[in-house]
């Protein structure tokens, strides 16, 4: 699952992230690049685990978009658990949606479920 084939249009290793938007992970290379690039900084990375079969994830999507736009200093990466089964496995993302908070490569917190208020509260707590 996930692509190991490099393409002409590969994103350079200093991964371009779109501030205030959720970045959909398209390849393992992109994910690794993003994850590694954030290890060195104190920036908050929020991994948004979703799946095609997850109704609650779709219910939450518009709220996530709105919340993310308010915190451009944090990086939000959307990971499809079926396309990236190993990443989902590493973070035990079985019950979705799951928002995993990572700083310097370590998980520091998570929100499981479509809980916008809880998500905002934890972003506020961890963004510094």
């Amino acid at each position, binding site marked *: 699952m996930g692509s190991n084939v490099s393409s002409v249009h590969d994103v350079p290793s200093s991964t371009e992230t779109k501030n205030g938007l959720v970045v959909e992970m398209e390849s393992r290379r992109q994910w690794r690049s993003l994850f590694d690039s954030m290890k060195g900084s104190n920036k908050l990375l929020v991994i948004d685990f979703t*799946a*095609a*079969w*997850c*109704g*609650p*994830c*779709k*219910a*939450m999507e518009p709220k996530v978009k709105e919340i993310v736009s308010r915190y451009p200093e944090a990086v939000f990466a959307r990971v*499809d658990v*079926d*396309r990236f089964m190993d990443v989902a496995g590493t973070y035990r993302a*079985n*019950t*979705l*949606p799951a928002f995993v908070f990572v700083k310097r490569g370590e998980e520091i917190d998570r929100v*499981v*479920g*479509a*809980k916008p*208020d*809880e998500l905002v*509260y934890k972003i506020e707590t961890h963004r510094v």
Partner: protein
Amino acid sequence: MAVSGFEGFEKRLELRFFNDNTTTTSTTNKSPMGLRLIDFESLDQVLTQVQCTVVSAVANHSFDAYVLSESSLFVYPTKIIIKTCGTTQLLKSIRPFIHLARTLNLTLRACRYSRGSFIFPKSQPFPHTSFEDEVVIVEDSLPKSLRHRKAFVMTPSNNPSRAWHVFTASADVEPDEPLVVVEVCMTELDPVNALSFFRRKGDENNDSAGKEMTRLSGIDAINENAFVCDFAFDPCGYSMNGVDGDRYSTIHVTPEDGFSYASFECGLSLHDDGRGDIAEVLSRAIDVFRPSCVSIATTYGGEDYDREVTKRVERVLAKKLGLKCRSRLMDEFPGSGTVVFQSFTPRRR
């Protein structure tokens, strides 16, 4: 007992559909998605007609679980369970759900509507003013292909005001549901236990308050395997959906003295190695609330009725919680199998 207050007793609707693999298979998930393909906007529209909204939700490989402003909604590939309390118009969801399923080429196979007796029956809007009226409305919403129908009120002789109302309609007489469904209704909750379900100063939001209530009340210990999606209402009240593989559970609490109520429902198998036997699970759930009045309705579905299970539940509740079984009724319903309705009160008041 208060003159009027929030109605905790829920109305429950279950719709089951025939398995049709041809158009509903998702390429990413191993099993067909079926009803889970219904887009959220459409679900939300149905809920608006019922007069409730989604306050929290989770999903896993097997099903989607939504906590509503007035109870819960579960969406499996071929089954919908919706349970609402207060004065909601649950039956208005039947036609829209059937229609949405039809757009996915899913045909209705069976319907079950059940409820206890309302604490404030006069506060209910039509058709919930009487079971007869409810049955007329449900029947009217169902296709003729559901030929086998039965409506019955299971009334305990010792307490006729706490009856169990069941209507089933099914394409086949034989039940198709592999899980046993247990619905527990509790009233006159211990006031100290009920206090856990009031919001406190300083708790951050409804989600974190809900999480605290789950922990403090011991609800997280009922099934330690389950992920609990909880929510605390303002100024009081609590709801949770439990998710454990393909098994669901749900708890709803109205803690106010005078009309306090709590419900516990779960789908389980009687042969659940290592998952905790039914009597233990029920005992743990009821112990959270220490109610003075409990009723348990068990729908066996495709499982054969086992008298030993019923007796074991009675023994365990008597031994661990001092609850004496005051009535036990049993009946058969097409498509749903055996339904057993027991009521309990403490051994010494």
